[in-house]
């Protein structure tokens, strides 16, 4: 120590002072470390469980796995709706160094359109970070290969595959199968209401129409889950456990693809519809509504241009004419009304009238005319069916009265839903006193009843209703629900058939009345005077049928209908119902060709072609069979 300083400084006092301060400092240090430790104790011991949970919550994510949608087969096991992998180009913008340069480069690689780029940018702006954004969907195999070869140049860009619906037969089955499309807000709301949103957590598409919609629940299946460990960027590091999804059930339809194609072909592009079913089960074998459209357009989102073209087309392709088309049934219901007359005892097989081509009621000025200007002469009920005599049925309607017609025809399913497994169904209209009061606030006039006798007036029916009613006649009152679906595919590829569904049967009073009307239908096709003879008399099988020509245009009282003077959309609808073989029918058909004119000349050939094909296929399985007598001949002239 320097002695000079020691004189003015009390060195040991200073040392003591410092020592005390050093000890105080150490105590403060220890106290503060105590605070740190106690805080850590709270975090690591007392709240450990909570933080452990949050830590796991950070790292473990439960990801839903979409179940594979059930496939749809026709009755012969042909795949009608399949799942195909589609590839889309996805980008995680945060993982890309230079987004614009990457987009430019991708554009030159695979012709990304400005629209796709714009959509991408739009999504990017409103999106959560580190979520992949789709730049292009439905990559071609070539594009996938092209990108895969270059992938190492593109950090943050990847090709993702998922399964998506594809309908190999396009427009042929649209109105039967419907289609799936992206789940929208409305669908989501419905799923939430049904408590199904968790089940759809990984699902892109949902059935929007047809079988796809009606059997959505069975087709969809049950969602699965996987527990994965993710890093802070949400990238999956590894899978911890998997609870696999339950795939949707594969559906087997009653539809016969070949017959469906034949039905489509038989309409030859005309507006109209063909419904083919099995009278023995009610199973719908074919159901084509023309014009149709390609359901695949909707799966990946239809462009608004295409959609408005479909929506605004005067031919109304979006409507399923078989189940939603409401047509006056016209003369096709004559066998049914005749049966009701016989069963109620209003007429007998021997009841005849003298048809002069004009029908009048006492004290009513109006004249109802027969389609045959000079009349059919003396007709009983069988001849009235065979020749489609209107006057007989004006009289029958008058005798039965609207109440009895309405009641009995409702029993045959008119004005009621058939229960076909499609949501796209109309119940059409069976008029009654009550209906007219409710609809027009007017009483029912006797004059309203008369045209009901020939299936006109306010009476409308869907082709599937017509087909169902004819089946009921064939089955002597047994009533089947038309079913598009046959059953579900079992594990071994066997079909687990759905039970047949029936409506309450119509009570039979006299079986011979039913047989008489069926016989009259046979005469329509095979008697020399039958209206369908030109189409069916040369058929290699016995059949029954009935034509109908539905007036859409009221001709003034003292004029006659001239086809060429009426605009096309007001021309008569051609209709035909038929079944075969006559004994133990296997197939029944309802045909409507819109604005084609007379039913026997324009709809009957269509029915013939379809039934021919049914038997040809049954024997030969040949979809391109054309009966020789119709080769080179215009259908529906």
């Amino acid at each position, binding site marked *: 120590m320097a002695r000079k300083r020691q004189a003015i400084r009390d060195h040991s006092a200073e040392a003591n002072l410092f020592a005390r301060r050093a000890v105080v400092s150490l105590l403060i240090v220890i106290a503060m470390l105590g605070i740190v430790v106690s805080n850590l104790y709270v975090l690591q*011991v007392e709240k450990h469980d909570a933080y452990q949970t949050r830590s796991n919550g950070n790292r473990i994510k439960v990801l839903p796995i979409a179940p594979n949608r059930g496939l749809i087969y026709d009755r012969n096991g042909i795949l009608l709706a399949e799942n195909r992998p589609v590839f889309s180009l996805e980008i995680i913008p945060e993982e890309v160094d230079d987004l614009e340069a990457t987009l430019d480069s991708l554009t030159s690689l695979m012709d990304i359109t400005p629209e796709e780029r714009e959509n991408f940018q739009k999504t990017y702006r409103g999106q959560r970070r580190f979520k992949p954004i789709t730049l292009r969907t439905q990559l071609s195999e070539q594009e996938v290969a092209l990108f895969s070869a270059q992938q190492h140049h593109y950090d943050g860009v990847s090709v993702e595959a998922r399964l998506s619906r594809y309908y190999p037969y396009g427009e042929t089955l649209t109105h039967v199968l419907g289609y799936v499309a992206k789940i929208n807000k409305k669908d989501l709301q419905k799923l939430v209401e049904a408590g199904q949103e968790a089940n759809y957590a990984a699902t892109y598409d949902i059935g929007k129409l047809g079988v796809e919609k009606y059997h959505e629940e069975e087709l969809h299946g049950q969602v699965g889950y996987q527990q994965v460990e993710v890093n802070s960027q949400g990238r999956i590091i590894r899978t911890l456990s998997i609870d696999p999804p339950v795939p949707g059930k594969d559906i087997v339809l009653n539809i016969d693809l070949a017959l469906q194609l034949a039905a489509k072909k038989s309409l030859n592009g005309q507006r109209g519809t063909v419904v083919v079913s099995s009278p023995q089960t009610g199973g719908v074998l074919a159901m084509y509504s023309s014009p149709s459209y390609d359901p695949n357009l909707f799966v990946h989102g239809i462009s608004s241009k295409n959609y408005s073209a479909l929506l605004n087309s005067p031919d109304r392709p979006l409507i399923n004419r078989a189940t939603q088309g409401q047509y006056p049934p016209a003369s096709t219901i004559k066998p049914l009304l005749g049966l009701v007359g016989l069963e109620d005892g209003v007429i007998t097989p021997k009841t005849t009238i003298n048809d002069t081509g004009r029908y009048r009621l006492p004290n009513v000025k109006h004249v109802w005319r027969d389609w045959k200007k000079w009349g059919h002469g003396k007709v009983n009920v069988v001849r009235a069916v065979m020749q489609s005599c209107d006057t007989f049925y004006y009289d029958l309607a008058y005798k039965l009265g609207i109440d009895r017609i309405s009641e009995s025809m409702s029993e045959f399913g008119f004005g009621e839903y058939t229960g076909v497994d499609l949501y796209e169904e109309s119940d059409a209209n069976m008029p009654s006193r009550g209906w007219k009061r409710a609809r027009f606030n007017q009483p029912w006039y006797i004059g309203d009843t008369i045209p009901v006798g020939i299936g006109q007036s306010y009476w409308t029916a869907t082709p599937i209703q017509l087909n169902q009613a004819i089946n009921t006649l064939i089955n002597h009152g047994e009533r089947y629900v038309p079913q598009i679906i046959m059953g579900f595919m079992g594990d071994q590829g066997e079909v687990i058939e759905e039970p047949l569904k029936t409506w309450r049967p119509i009570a039979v009073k006299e079986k011979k009345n039913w047989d008489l009307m069926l016989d009259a239908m046979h005469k329509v096709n095979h008697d020399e005077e039958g209206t369908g003879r030109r189409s069916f008399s040369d058929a290699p099988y016995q059949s029954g049928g009935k034509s109908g020509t539905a007036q859409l245009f009221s001709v003034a009282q003292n004029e006659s209908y001239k086809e060429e003077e009426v605009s096309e959309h007001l021309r008569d609808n051609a209709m035909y119902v038929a079944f075969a073989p006559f004994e133990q029918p296997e197939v029944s058909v309802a045909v409507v060709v819109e604005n084609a004119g007379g039913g026997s000349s324009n709809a009957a050939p269509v029915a013939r072609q379809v039934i021919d094909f049914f038997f040809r296929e049954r024997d030969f399985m040949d979809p391109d069979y054309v009966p020789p007598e119709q080769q080179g001949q215009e259908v529906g002239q």
Partner: protein
Amino acid sequence: MKRTQLKQNQSTLLERIHIDGWLLLGLLVLMVVGLYTLYSASGQDMGQMERQFTRLGIAMGVMFVMAQVPPMAYRRLSTYAYIAGLLMLIAVLLFGDVGKGAQRWLDLKFVRFQPSELMKLAVPMMVAWYISKFTLPPKLMQIGIGFALVIVPTILIAKQPDLGTSLLIASSGIFAIFLAGMSWKLIGFVAALAGGFTPIMWFFLMQDYQKQRVTTFLNPESDPLGSGYHIIQSQIAIGSGGLEGKGWLQGTQSQLEFLPERHTDFIFAVFSEEFGLVGVLALLAIYLFIIIRGLIIANRAQDAYSKLLAGSITLTFFVYVFVNMGMVSGLLPVVGVPLPLVSFGGTSMVTLMAGFGILMAIGTQKRFLSR
């Protein structure tokens, strides 16, 4: 070699090269723990490990060189270092380079330099020099001047803005004054004054981002994905570590990158997650050992300047530890203070080790002083 004969039992190779064995032991253990933790925190990045290892080597070299300088020389250098540092701080504010949004660097053509690092040592040296000129305990006037010597560089650094460093520099100077024997009454008064100064700091001195840090600290859950993300993830890491930890390299918060800044300022969260409370207590024991050793060296020093400087360096080291652990565990707002000798990063480590070099010089060269 008379001294060797006087204290024969302590005469070792280490003493001859002016290295304090106990302190060296503590520092080495800490560095090893630090490297292990960094290996995990960096995601087994050998590149980072090499860089850190190089830095530690350089820092050890600096410590060794600083330990050879006689304490008397430090005392004589004090004023020059302080004035030079102060001028450079002003220069930084006027012409400094901007790095990471703060003006901290001075480009001296051949080397980029952070004057604030120099001030971490220059301020306690200057205060110790000034206070030790007079008899202890210091008078009010001397205390006032002492505080002025502290506050000027503190404010200059806070302006850069670098809250963490200004906090460390302020405390290093204040520790010197405290150890000199500032009366408890005055301490109470200054504490009250500092309390009154807080709002002034809030409204006039603190930048928006600093204010944000404080608000976040008070309620991190208010913005869990934004400003609160760091502290929330850090607390999850620490809390989920539990008593025994998830094991080395097994911390999900750090390995799966949920924890931000995990190899720098938040490395303590990685350590806590993987080694648990037990590991943390062991780590704290190492730090405490170094601090106690530092205080012993300070207490044994034979002149006031050395005592004050050694004590200040030791306690400032503690401030690093406390502030870092405090901010990572949510006790304190997030200010950029690394966990000494464990966090990845160069400049502050060199400064720290230079400080330990001075401490060793004081601890091993006192007999030269008494001559």
